Structure formats: structure tokens, C-alpha cells
């Protein structure tokens, strides 16, 4: 795991965070529930809470789908390429590329390889970006959530011990956390791009 320079984190006075969705996106409850599941995963391991708010502008974390240049100097580039980005604490901005084909089912879909259709599993990206919102940088551990890329053919939503160690360094452990995480596997799967092989985001 790694952190942003200076190890920024949400201050002690802001441990009950709110999140809201860009109202112009008019997201369905199904899409919003994907993010709720992602927040729960992080909330299980650290003593922070995440509550959905309807007030976008004043929420701690602001989630929005945008295309191209959208005001933060980090333009999205269309289908695939860069999929999402989020800013270090206490910024709270969490942006996703609205031009992607996002799969919103909790279980990863219908079993068809997402790499065939270049579709992206939304919850997998959401869990990763929330890690950035909390202060984690990218990890070199390939199975970790905070690895910069992820196979599209697979749903990747479970925090590994690398992710948990990193975020607990910043915030401490949730008293209710039982210590169960997914350890990194010893045999690392090497992704080789598209054309039938795994495609990663």
C-alpha cells in the first residue's frame, strides 16, 4: 500500500462522512446502491461511517459521472483508457467516465467475460476510488484493490490484507472488524491485454 505525499487523511473531527451523487446524472437507485456496497466494504475495517446525503454541494464526498474535460484539469478520454479518478482527503471529489459501459450487478453480471464487451464492473472501480478518497495511493500488490489496474473479466471488490493494513494505518481499526481479509495470492496472474486475454482497468 501507499499514501499520497504527506499522508493526508480525514481529520479526527470528520469521521462520519456523507456522500452524494451529482444530481445532473439522475442515477437510479440500483446504481447508487453499487456505491453503498463499496462504502460498506471500507467502513467494515475502519472507524469511519459513510452516510448518503441528498445535498451534493455540501457533502464530504461528491460522486459524479462526467465525460471529457469536466473542470478539474483531468479530462476523461472516452471508452476505456482512464476510467475514473478521485482526490486525496479532504477533497472528496470522486469522478467516473460516463462514456464507459458500466456493469452494475452485484455479482459481476451474467458470467459472460466482460473483456469481450469492454464493460467495466462498477463496484470494483468504486471500491478502488474510495480508497483514494480515504488517502490510499496505488499499490504494487497485484491482487489488492489499490492496484492501478484490474481485470475486467473478473469482479474485484474484496479488500486484501494490503488494503486493510494501509487504511488502518491512517485511521485505526474498526472495533467490530474481525480481521478477516483476502490475503494476496502467491501466484500472480499476469494480464496480457485484450484479444481474448484479460483486459484490465
Amino acid at each position, binding site marked *: *500500500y*501507499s*499514501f*499520497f*505525499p504527506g499522508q493526508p487523511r480525514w481529520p479526527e473531527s470528520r469521521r462520519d462522512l456523507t456522500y452524494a451523487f451529482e444530481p445532473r446524472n439522475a442515477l*437510479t437507485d*440500483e*446504481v447508487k446502491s453499487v456505491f453503498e456496497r463499496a462504502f460498506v466494504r471500507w467502513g467494515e475495517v475502519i472507524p469511519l461511517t459513510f452516510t448518503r446525503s441528498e445535498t451534493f454541494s455540501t457533502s464530504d464526498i461528491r460522486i459524479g459521472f462526467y465525460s471529457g474535460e469536466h473542470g478539474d484539469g*483531468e479530462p*476523461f478520454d*472516452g*471508452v*476505456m*483508457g*482512464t*476510467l*475514473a*479518478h*478521485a482526490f486525496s482527503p479532504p477533497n472528496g471529489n470522486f469522478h467516473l467516465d460516463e462514456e464507459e*459501459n*458500466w*456493469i*452494475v*450487478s452485484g455479482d459481476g*453480471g*451474467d458470467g*459472460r467475460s*466482460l473483456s*469481450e*464487451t*469492454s*464493460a*467495466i464492473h*462498477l463496484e470494483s*472501480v468504486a471500491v*478502488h*476510488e474510495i480508497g*483514494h478518497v480515504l488517502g490510499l*495511493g*496505488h*499499490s*504494487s500488490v*497485484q491482487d489488492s484493490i489499490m492496484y*492501478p*489496474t484490474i481485470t*475486467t473479466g473478473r469482479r474485484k471488490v474484496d479488500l486484501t490484507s*494490503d488494503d486493510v*493494513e*494501509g487504511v488502518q*494505518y491512517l485511521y485505526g481499526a474498526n472495533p467490530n472488524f474481525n480481521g478477516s481479509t483476502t490475503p494476496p495470492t502467491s501466484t*500472480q496472474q*499476469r*494480464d*496480457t*491485454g*485484450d484479444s481474448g*486475454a484479460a*483486459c*484490465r*482497468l
Partner: protein
Amino acid sequence: GFYPNSSAIPPDLRRNATGNVWNSFLNFTGCHAGMKVDGLYKLKQYFKHFGYIPETHAGNFTDDFDDILKNAVEMYQRNFQLNVTGELDDLTLNHVVIPRCGVADVVNGTSTMHSGRRTYEVSFAGRGPRFHAVKR
């Protein structure tokens, strides 16, 4: 668009989705230091975006495979646990074109991707020979 599963994606969108904006980088397979290849400056822009070329660089990149690009490639290969060749080999470029998070891997020229790895040292000083284990 949002879809319950990949089968729900309209066929015409599936076709469009196969075009990765970075796929043209695959044409650089085999390039190495000293070469000059049309369009190589775009790959330098990619590496600059993700921090492998410092922000302090002016950004008026040439198509030369110079030391700036070689250093960037080597750091990228280290971060992704690829063979550190400094060349644009097949495996490296197949990683480069993979869609990814837009947050930089490297900040201020220093990769942070390995920074949190802890080192544990445990010593067992029993009657027998001293056993010293290090876990990284």
C-alpha cells in the same frame, strides 16, 4: 451507460468499446533507446500523466526514445513487476494499454507504489543456532 450485465449492452456499443484510446501504443513494440519513431511523444505524455515523467518537464516532447523515456519505462516496469529492460517490449506495452485508474502512480518523480511494505524481523534465540527471519 449502465447495464445489469454485459449481454445487455447493445451490439453497436460493444463494437465501439473495443477501441481503446491507447491501442496505438502497441505500434511501438520493440522500440528502444536511441530510436526515433513517429508518435512516440504521445507515449511520453502518457507516462507524464501517470507521474513517470516529472511534472517539472516542460512537456514539449520529441519522438526520440531518449533517457527521459527510458527512465520512465524502467520505473513503470518496476512498479508492475515486469522485467526491467527499459525497452518497449510486448509485455510492457500490453500493460500500458490496459484501461486504468487516472490517479498517478508516481508523485514528484518518486514511486510510492512500494512505500508501505513493511519489514518484519523476528529473532529466535534458543539453545540451538540463532534463527533470524525477515519477512518483506
